[in-house]
């Protein structure tokens, strides 16, 4: 192989190799892109957080309409807490703030920290479900054997599509004791 060709090959190698490196970076770029995409489209069942003062200013209660909100609780694999809603479902008027609570008990003999992650079904309703106060906003420590009632205040946006009559709010509680210690 003559020298000119060898140099040309070397340059081509660098150029094509750079594409490969850039694509490795693109793989990581997909992570923020994914979050932005979900936020814009409201996909993925992630619920909104809203300030209580803003609610009063923004929403008028729609007393003519009433929707069912169901509460579901799950434990992630290996999470020993007894975790569940205080009431299984509520009839609510959109635009009005409601309060309820979930109950958790740590039956083990060690202190633990849990993190609840919410999800709303159907997915398209999730952007109309807002919380002013939620135990899922922060990690929840429970001492060995401790029982705690954890409050939740929420409001359903009156702009909720007309065909949605039932919302399901599901929480999965994860054991984050290890992470919290670190």
């Amino acid at each position: 192989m003559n020298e000119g060709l060898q140099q040309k090959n070397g340059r081509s190698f660098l150029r094509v190799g750079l594409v490969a490196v850039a694509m490795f970076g693109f793989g990581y770029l997909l992570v923020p892109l994914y979050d932005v995409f979900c936020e814009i489209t409201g996909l993925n069942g992630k619920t909104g957080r809203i300030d209580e003062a803003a609610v009063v200013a923004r929403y008028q209660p729609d007393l003519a309409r009433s929707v069912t909100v169901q509460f579901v609780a799950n434990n992630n694999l290996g999470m020993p807490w007894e975790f569940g809603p205080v009431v299984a479902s509520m009839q609510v008027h959109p635009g009005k703030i409601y309060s309820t609570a979930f109950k958790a008990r740590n039956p083990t003999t060690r202190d633990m920290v849990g993190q609840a992650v919410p999800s709303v079904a159907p997915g398209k309703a999730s952007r109309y479900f807002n919380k002013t106060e939620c135990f899922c906003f922060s990690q929840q420590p429970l001492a060995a054997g401790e029982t705690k009632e954890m409050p939740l205040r929420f409001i359903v946006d009156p702009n909720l599509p007309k065909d949605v009559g039932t919302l399901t709010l599901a929480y999965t509680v994860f054991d984050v004791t290890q992470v919290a210690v670190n």
Partner: protein
Amino acid sequence: MRWVTTTNHKDIGTLYLLFALVMFFVGGAMAMVIRAELFQPGLQVVDPQFFNSMTTVHALVMIFGAVMPAFTGLANWLVPMMIGAPDMALPRLNNFSFWILPFAFTLLLSTFFMDGGGPAGGWTLYPPLSLQMGEGFPFLIFAIHLAGISSIMGSINIVVTVLNMRAPGMTLMKMPLFVWTWLITAYLLIATMPVLAGAVTMLLTDKFAGTSFFSAAGGGDPVMFQHIFWFFGHPEVYILILPAFGIISAIIPTFARKPLFGYSSMVYATASIAFLSFIVWAHHMFTVGMPVVGELFFMYATMMIAVPTGVKVFNWVSTMWKGAMTFETPMLFAVGFIIMFTIGGFSGLMLAIAPADFQYHDTYFVVAHFHYVLVTGAIYSIMAAAYYWLPKWTGNMYDEKLGQIHFWVSTVSVNVLFFPQHFLGLAGMPRRIPDYSVQFTDWNVISSVGGFVFGLSQLLFAYVVIKCIRGGEKVDDQVWEGADGLEWTLSSPPPYHSFTEAPQIK
């Protein structure tokens, strides 16, 4: 030592092909365990954890260890000979990219001997299931990294060779289709393998470094892994089939004794398939809860792929139309490819229909679909290529009679093996589960019998290949009466260093 330090494209091609053959039997042995367990309902042969690791590692070995290295081996042997180049552009890189592979697969297979056993969460490595693997987890991830680096480097080499090393007069639109399809495949690999490497690195840091890319507790999302994985995964399935299209486009004209019908439309069809492969990934995830608009987009985009693929199938059929056809073993495999790959293509079209996919998803129907496109598609094309070019590579004719027996036994048994799996899937049998409900017994028995016969008949293939390498009836340079291309102008076997003087292109 010659084989360790060699930088010759023919030596490295041989190494790749032999490595792929060994891995084909390793992965095949795992398939035999799967079919033995599924021969009867209930747990018969292995425990469920081991069964799950068999399905997982069977897929990883066959995809990354058998089909991809086999295609890279064929590219090493053939691309320089087809474009009139003396060797690959980056010979030392070539040596390196092969010799990573045995280490990658030693790492992967060594996980079976570790605490917790081999990977058992499916080859797609979905978290959180894949993160529950035992001590072998980092070995699995590094094995994927190494196999990925190997194929990225191999691809870079092919791109540089094709772009810089063509003989004077060999314009892009004069290149044989095998070179074209590999050039496009190499770009797909360079664009997607790094994304896979990123995704598995995220798994690794999620498990060991406390990140939470895919853990909901820390604000991540396990479904995001599926998106990133299939952004790699769907182009990957075309990586596994585009070189096959190139092989078939070389063999059909030879035995039909007519030039390929619609050469340029073949090139454009290949490029269209490659482009479309980047915008259809979510059809693997129709059931994750996408909005209707998303389902429709991915459904229509997926169905669009049938158009360029159809162009190819019709071009092959038109090439055979009124040709003076003979049916030597390579042609049998090529015709078998066209018929059975099309069956797999049609079941793929059925799976692309989003509302219907909710029923087919994760059933044996999917298993039947991708085995039709990968076994009777990709693997059949590799066997066709082996029979077609072995006489050129070795200078000896293979045993035609044994080759024909191999084809017919394989083709009957592979259909007995996979066709009943369509029925099982439509009836609702889920994939990746060692036990099943008794009403699925009959078709599973038939499928397993087909599987054992197909597995054993591949030993005949290995025998034919070894016999041909060792000796046989000598062939002339042309080998096949209708063959056309620069590689047939070289002697059989070709000299160790070929085209040191660039050939004249008409």
